[in-house]
């Protein structure tokens, strides 16, 4: 089948969903052909196929974008709304949190809200404090949504199809640094179910639970540590919320040790929730405290060496694992 990048994977998933269902349409800033098919080209080529009504380039109006997506979803359509960069969700949180996430519940099940909110972010690109944050914990804290992020192109294709199929809002986070990653193309109609983690690497000494770009770091560190006789199991959550508790707990019950890792800042993060859950449910099997690694608790800095220092370091990941297994 050949290889595809994550950008191509997302484009193919959206394309095939639009071909199958007239109710699927995209809206967002710069998404149509006139603007080049999105700043990261994910919607490239789709205007030519489906027209400007289904690839709607919007004004810079995040509240109006998500509001329109909510309304269209209430009328039975399946909008894919793009918020160009994740920090901009601050502009439209009311529409996401008070409306998209709650309308199924508040209507007693009458008005589900099937929206995919695509958004891009990531540390390490030199975008500074207002274009880089990983804000998944904000959404994971709200009932009524799925929060998803792929770490590779094949998962991106499969998760996007499942996100469009879902009858509830999905926050779909795309890490800028992952757009160019290549996978074997899993082919048309491929789906990765929401709420299902992947064991990205099997191991026996420690469960390293992560998602998104840091899966790459985790796999690299796990590969290095194998040479030192430490066997790390890497869990790629893929869906951050509601996450695959079964896979996570089974892994920790097997290894007896756990480390959570994400690019987002550590305090009150996704790792804290998972760590607390592991300690409640795997207490008898744990050989030590669950450890957590996250980004530095400050704004993402601009200068390259500061930004690199801000990101969770591979040396720190390795150090924490060694300390956990008693080989530091």
């Amino acid at each position: 089948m050949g290889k595809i990048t994550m950008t191509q994977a997302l484009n193919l998933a959206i394309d095939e969903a639009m071909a199958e269902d007239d109710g699927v349409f995209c809206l967002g800033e710069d998404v149509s052909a006139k603007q080049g098919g999105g700043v990261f080209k994910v919607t490239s080529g789709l205007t030519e196929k489906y027209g400007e009504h289904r690839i709607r380039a919007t004004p810079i109006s995040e509240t109006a974008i998500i509001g329109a997506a909510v309304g269209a979803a209430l009328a039975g359509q399946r909008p894919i709304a793009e918020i160009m960069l994740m920090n901009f969700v601050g502009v439209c949180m009311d529409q996401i949190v008070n409306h998209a996430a709650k309308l199924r519940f508040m209507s007693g099940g009458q008005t589900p809200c099937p929206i995919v909110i695509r958004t891009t972010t990531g540390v390490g690109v030199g975008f500074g404090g207002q274009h880089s944050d990983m804000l998944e914990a904000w959404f994971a804290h709200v009932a009524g949504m799925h929060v998803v992020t792929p770490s590779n192109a094949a998962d991106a294709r499969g998760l996007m199809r499942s996100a469009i199929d879902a009858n509830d809002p999905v926050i779909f986070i795309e890490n800028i640094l992952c757009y160019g990653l290549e996978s074997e193309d899993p082919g048309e109609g491929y789906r990765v179910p929401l709420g299902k983690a992947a064991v990205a690497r099997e191991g026996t000494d420690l469960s390293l639970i992560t998602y998104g770009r840091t899966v790459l770091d985790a796999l690299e560190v796990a590969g290095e540590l194998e040479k030192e006789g430490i066997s790390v199991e890497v869990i790629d959550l893929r869906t951050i919320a509601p996450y695959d508790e079964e896979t996570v707990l089974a892994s920790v019950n097997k290894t007896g040790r756990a480390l959570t890792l994400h690019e987002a800042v550590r305090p009150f993060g996704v790792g804290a929730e998972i760590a607390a859950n592991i300690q409640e449910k795997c207490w008898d099997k744990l050989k030590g405290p669950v450890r957590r690694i996250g980004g530095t608790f400050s704004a993402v800095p601009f200068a390259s060496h500061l930004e690199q220092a801000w990101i969770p370091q591979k040396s720190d990941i390795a150090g924490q694992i060694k300390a956990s297994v008693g080989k530091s």
Partner: protein
Amino acid sequence: MAEIERDKLLDIYTRTMKVNRTDEKFRELLMQGKVAVMYYCVRGQELVSAAAMAALDDDDYVVCTYRGQGEQTAKGIPIKKWWGECLGKATGTCKGKGGTMHITDPDTGIMVTTGVVGSGIPIANGLAMASQNNGDGRVTLVSFGDGAANIGGFHEAMNMAQLYKLPVVFLCQNNRYGEHTAYADHTDSPDISSRAEGYGMKGIKVDGNDVNQVYPAMQEAVDHARSGKGPVLVEAMCYRMMGHFFGSDFSYMPEEHIAEMKSEDPLPKLRKVMLERQFTEEELDKIVADIDAEIEEAVQHALDAPLPDTDEIYKDVLEETA
């Protein structure tokens, strides 16, 4: 301006009185302590809601606010379910999980009722966008107050609606107060409707207390939107004759304002028009009596209805929990 047809006038009167009698009954129940819930009175704004709903088709979409009783009952929501919801009962439109501020009944086109000022305006665009996408010919009407015109989403939504020529009517019920703040203390420009021009949109300002003004204006706006010419911003001037919500203080309203709104009360004015158009006192009283009987039955039904099961808190969170 052409005279409103007699049948349509009767329809508007009936809808208006439905709204008013529902409001009176709600306040009575609250005063008697028979129910204790948040309720945002619509006294003074009945006619605007009724005229707007009378201008729509049955399958048109409506988005309203916590002060949405007028649109909901005038659009024809089944009142047993409406009262059930307001009283937090299992028989409610939303199984008692939405409440007075979040009434939804897609069958009558009440698509969302928001408790966040101004939030419905961008959502209305989406409903209209769906209609534009699938060509179903529906119009979406979103109702909001003068206070909502100062929220950022208003501006974003107005611009977007005009850009795409969406079939939507923005109905600003200018009741001259945003919560406790008088219009002049939150907005310096003399009206909201003139903002339409800034978006390249059609704007209409109308006396919401005069049926002969407000209904033709609503009809014009709905026709304009449905014809594909784009959205319309209608500003209907009216008065909120009670506090922000039931029981809230409104001593901040100056005496002159209260005197002015009493003299402009839409109900005696509408009654006068009806009599001028040769409807009899008996006919009009009979309509009100029938509405009252229907409301009594619905209220009793709601009072007697079961509470939602406690496990409803786990349901309808995601599809998997439906």
